């Protein structure tokens, strides 16, 4: 279940967004990714997301990618807020809305930036009748990447920071989906290599909006094993965001689309909402969620 604990930050972690920068400024690959990381962290603070995660087996027909089966759909609502001196710790609550068999499952997660501190996760299932702490460990440091909600996205794909554990090369410039992009390669160092399933990744970053429009993940045999595609890039709260992300697993021929149906940041979220009460007290939770929604209007 630790996979789900990162949901609070994936609302923005995958978006790889930037604030607009001064035109003509020369940036290195590291600088681009560093600014991306800072932007991701800032967009995660005090956020409310509603997302739909759709997965299916895919095929290629007439050079178009199509689902070969009816997509499996999960609908989730999450609230997150950053804490700590540098706002690098994140508390989040995630509620499953769909499918029906998982409706009402709630998860509270405290993710600490300090690798010495274990992340904390509590789960609420109506069958359990109580809040239960989950043995989660620190998903970034102790465990291998794992599927997120049964999708093709993994915890590694949602990871932020740790840029110093990569060699980052600016390969060049090209176009992607009709837009000018930088091509940036990230190669893990020896320490990071032990935790990752990718020997390298290549990102295609929109030069104007600083959004990753495409990412390619390669295995140790230099084969592309996964590809991430972004679309519906929109300006939300002065930040460019890709509201639709599709991860294709080229080994299993499955894909997952993560659609941010609603994404709002910089909200006034009470600290009390990010406690165990939100899991057990549905009347309180729904009331507070309504207050959050009212801030959006």
């Amino acid at each position, binding site marked *: 279940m630790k996979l789900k604990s990162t949901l609070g930050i994936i609302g923005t972690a995958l978006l790889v967004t930037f604030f607009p920068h001064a035109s003509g400024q020369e940036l290195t690959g590291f600088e681009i990714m560093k600014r991306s990381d800072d932007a991701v962290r800032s967009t995660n603070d005090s956020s409310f997301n509603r997302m739909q995660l759709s997965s299916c087996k895919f095929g290629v027909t007439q*050079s178009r*990618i*199509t689902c070969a089966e009816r997509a499996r759909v999960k609908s989730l609502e999450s609230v997150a807020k950053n804490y700590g001196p540098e706002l690098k710790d994140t508390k989040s609550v995630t509620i499953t809305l769909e499918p*029906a068999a998982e409706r009402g499952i709630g998860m509270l997660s405290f993710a600490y930036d300090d690798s010495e501190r274990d992340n*904390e996760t509590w789960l609420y299932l109506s069958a359990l009748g109580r809040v239960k702490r989950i043995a989660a460990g620190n998903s970034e440091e102790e465990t291998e990447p794992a599927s997120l909600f049964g999708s093709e996205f993994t915890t590694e794909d949602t990871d932020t920071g740790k840029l110093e554990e990569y060699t980052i090369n600016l390969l060049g410039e090209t176009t992607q989906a009709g837009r000018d992009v930088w091509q940036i390669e990230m190669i893990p160092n020896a320490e990071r290599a032990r935790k990752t399933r990718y020997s390298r990744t290549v990102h295609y970053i929109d030069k104007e909006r600083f959004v990753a429009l495409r990412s390619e993940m390669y*295995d140790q045999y230099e084969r592309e094993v996964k590809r991430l595609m972004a679309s519906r890039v929109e300006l939300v709260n002065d930040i460019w965001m890709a509201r639709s992300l599709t991860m294709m697993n080229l*080994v299993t*021929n499955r894909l997952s689309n993560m*659609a941010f149906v609603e994404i709002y940041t910089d909200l006034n979220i009470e600290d009390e909402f990010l406690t165990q009460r939100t899991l057990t007290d549905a009347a309180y939770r729904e009331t507070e969620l309504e207050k959050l929604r009212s801030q*959006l209007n």
Partner: protein
Amino acid sequence: MLRFCQLVILVQLLLTKTYAQQEEPLILDDSVSFDAELAIDDDIFGNVFDEDTSSTTSSWFEDFTVRVSQQFFGQVNNHSVEPLPGFVFPREAEMENNRLGINIRYQNAFSPGWLLQASGQIRSYWKDDYEYEANGERIDMDYRVNELFLQRSFDQHSIKFGRQTVVWGETVGNSVLDVINHFEFRDLSIIDIEDARLNQWMVVWDYFGDSGQFSTFINLYPEFNPAPVRGSPFFFEPAFNITDYDRDDNPFFEIGTQYRLSFEGSDISFMAAYLVENQLRYEDPVTGIGDAVARKNDFVLLGFSANRAIGKLLLNFDFAYSHNVLADSFSFPGTSSLATPLDLKKNQVGTSFGFEYAVSNEQSVSLGIQAQKLLDEDEGLLPGQQLINDGVFGSWLVRYSNNLMNGDLVLSSTLQGGLDANSFFAMLDANYTISDNWAINAQIVSITANNSTPLLFFDEDVRLGATITYSF
């Protein structure tokens, strides 16, 4: 059992083979269309962006969750048991459960701070189901309201009134503190306590303070574990009529409170309660004929529970001190004692402890051990008398689960037995999620018991079951 294990191995081999066949990545060249507007047909994702979420009016039906399931379950091993030399009881293979179930759950936060929640179930028993046969070989139906409560939350308070569950304790599956609600292990397709817990009429007041949470309940109508249903595997013909407890002349209630604190890596709780044991004790009629005398067992419980997370390991600990419990209260769930019990009240200590360990992102294992002991157990006994629960008694429980195929296939096993090693349950379970609506489950349950326990009558039983479920 062996055949099922072979099946599990076969499934795993097939999965391995499937992955092996797909180990070569698909080559996607740039001619494959996948541009910013998503070449994937948008409708396969439900046109999620097309709906105007801000103006969506919620349908009354969205507050309901419905699960429809058809279950087949039966004993498949032809054998016999011999509780006493010369008394041989045949145990023939037979269908036990053939039933359709509809579970409905409703949750509606109808106004700020208010919530109404209800859940219930309807069961229809088809041919060969034990309830069908107990009903004169006619299709039988029953229904039950599980949850039904109204909740009001304001400031740091929450009050719930209605049928609900209160669960105490940290240990998975067999906590000594999980004694507030009563249970019904109606048949052997239910061996997890989470599936057997029944709701009761209560008022629960929660106070969420800055330094911890107080949770207090008053049970206005304490209920008892239901007697075995006629025809079920647990049913036996009693020597006297089993009757409900006569509460008209003796109204009673339960009350308890828990204080819970959370620290980084740990949660702890303190509890105190006045309770009535969930299992009624039955005594022989005074005149020797007629109805058995149902007797309740009220006592005071003091408890403490704690957990500690260390990386992927979670340690659990519960402690219970019970004051003034009836020394002889039969503890096997769903059955009742007609032996001549001793009329002694004693104090009892109990503990349950164990761990949960996340082997990997997909696999987890847990162990729970429960042990209880009456204090001064020999005090008050006449020469030759012996308590039913003599010395340390309790149970152990091991669970293992493995998520495959991104969680679509969950293989799990449950092993449990008594500390006295007189009985042993083993269950293997496979749950496959076919789609967002459909799921199928298969399970095998095996029991081993010796003649020191009433479970002897289930010795060498092997049960196979399958359930198909549709949720919406």
